[in-house]
């Protein structure tokens, strides 16, 4: 048998999807930081998380990452794209870059992604449902309602005026400065 006939195949890269995923993860992290200061639904949820609790979302194996920590007072702080896994309390791994892309670009909701085993997680999962509710609320701000409706079972109960004002604020200054 000619062994040379059978090539070794190294995994090809998907730089564009990887870049988009990382950008959206950054947007998500900053939006979490900003909205945790202004949205009462998120404030209420985050109050129930342990102080110092750090949540990390990462695309396996090296497809982008973001982390947020709950600070004293109940607000979230974006901790960047290179947070140390060992220091996170819960790490949610998205199993592959394509699913991550679908999730981060509003094609696949978190509930369905979980139902489809798109994610696995390390750490104490007792706050998982609350975390999902917060992510859904943030998505409801970041995506138009028409899109959000397909991503979650019911849209979060955010009053019309607040949703639009906070959406504008998040896109104008929240994502850029986290305020």
């Amino acid at each position, binding site marked *: 048998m000619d062994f040379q006939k059978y090539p070794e195949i190294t995994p090809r890269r998907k730089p564009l999807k990887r870049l988009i995923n990382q950008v959206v993860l950054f947007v998500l992290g900053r939006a979490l930081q900003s909205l945790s200061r202004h949205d009462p639904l998120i404030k209420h949820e985050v109050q*129930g998380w342990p102080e110092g609790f750090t949540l990390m979302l990462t695309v396996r194996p090296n497809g982008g990452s973001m982390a947020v920590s709950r600070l004293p007072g109940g607000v979230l702080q974006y901790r960047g794209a290179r947070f140390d896994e060992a220091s996170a309390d819960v790490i949610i791994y998205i199993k592959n870059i394509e699913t991550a892309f679908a999730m981060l670009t509003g094609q696949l909701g978190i509930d369905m992604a979980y139902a*489809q085993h798109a994610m696995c997680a390390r*750490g104490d999962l007792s706050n998982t*449902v*609350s975390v999902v509710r917060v992510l859904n609320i943030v998505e409801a701000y970041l995506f138009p309602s028409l899109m959000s409706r397909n991503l979650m079972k*019911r849209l979060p109960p955010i009053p019309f005026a607040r949703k639009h004002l906070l959406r504008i604020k998040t896109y104008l200054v929240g994502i850029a400065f986290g305020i």
Partner: protein
Amino acid sequence: MLPTYYEFCFPVKIISGHAALNNLPAELLQANTARPLVISDQGVTRAGLGKIVTDAFAESGITIAAFFDEVPPESSTLLVNQLAGLYHERQCDSLIAVGGGSVIDTAKGVNILVSLGGQDVRDYRGAEVLPGPLRPFFVVPTTAGTGSEATNSAVIADPDQGVKMLFVSEFLMPRAAILDSRMTLTLPPRLTAATGMDALAHAMEAYISIQKNPISDAYTWQAVKLIGENLRMVAQNPADKDGRLALANASTMAGTAFSNSMVGCVHSMGHAAGGVAHIPHGVAMNIFLPFGLEFNLKRRAECVAELLLPLAGPEVYSGTSADQRARKTIAEVRRLKQDLHEITGLPRTLQEAGVQRAQLEDIAKLAINDGSAMMNPEELRLEDALELANRAFDQI
């Protein structure tokens, strides 16, 4: 319609029969093991079930390296860590769980630690992150309800933090589950009824969950059919060996279904009621099941309607018009509840189970944060959970 994507995993060998335990030693030999650690509880020992297990090892050449029968009703990470020490000290090479959910979950935790190393099982908490496979593990269930012998998860309390740790991995499933009718023959009628309703809730919730898939559905179908045909009879006649075996099989199939499709708001409410008011899990499932099905009717009426056939049989199904079948399924669940109440005294409402009205708000608050809520077809909000709790308080 097929889901756009699903996963299904069930690698457990099922050994079912009136004397199925006799083949347990052969299974250990096949797994190339000879010194199992048996994990059990006092209830098993008091009922004489431990002796049935040890008798099965007569002339087998296999030495039970340790028979631990002190697992409490709620397993703990501390006990898991200690049992891993016992496993190593006695140079065990496999695990056998003989008991209900707490015993089986404890054994799953021990298997993680003895297989992967370390001092504290809490280091391995999480979902789908365990490297496997683990050591050969066998389960002999002594209740017909939890289905833990067929599930990929373990819930173990962490006494330091006062929380329940969740471990999810396909590697937690046993190599074999032995369903022997002798092991459930001594279950009192009320416990039989409660565990049977637990299994029914597993099966029905798996069938309507957002993770439902055709293979889980097949397991659900047979589980519901066996429960519908046998639960009343066994509650009336606990010595019915064939009925006992049928319920043990139903429980395992329901466990298989929900291990791959998850449960929903019935379990969220039940876990919360257990946490706040300490009512037994099976009792809570019996109370909440019809209300949970009703809550999901808007999104899952078709699925609920389909369950009428296995639950009530072809005559009832064909005698009910298509648009009434979902309601009829729920009415049949209520009729089963009522019958079990009359036969065994199983509580039908939260009030009958000793829950105070003042506890309902706490139950609702806890329920919306229960992991089961995520796979429920309808989103469970605080106001929904409160309404469910209020209705279940004094309605059947």
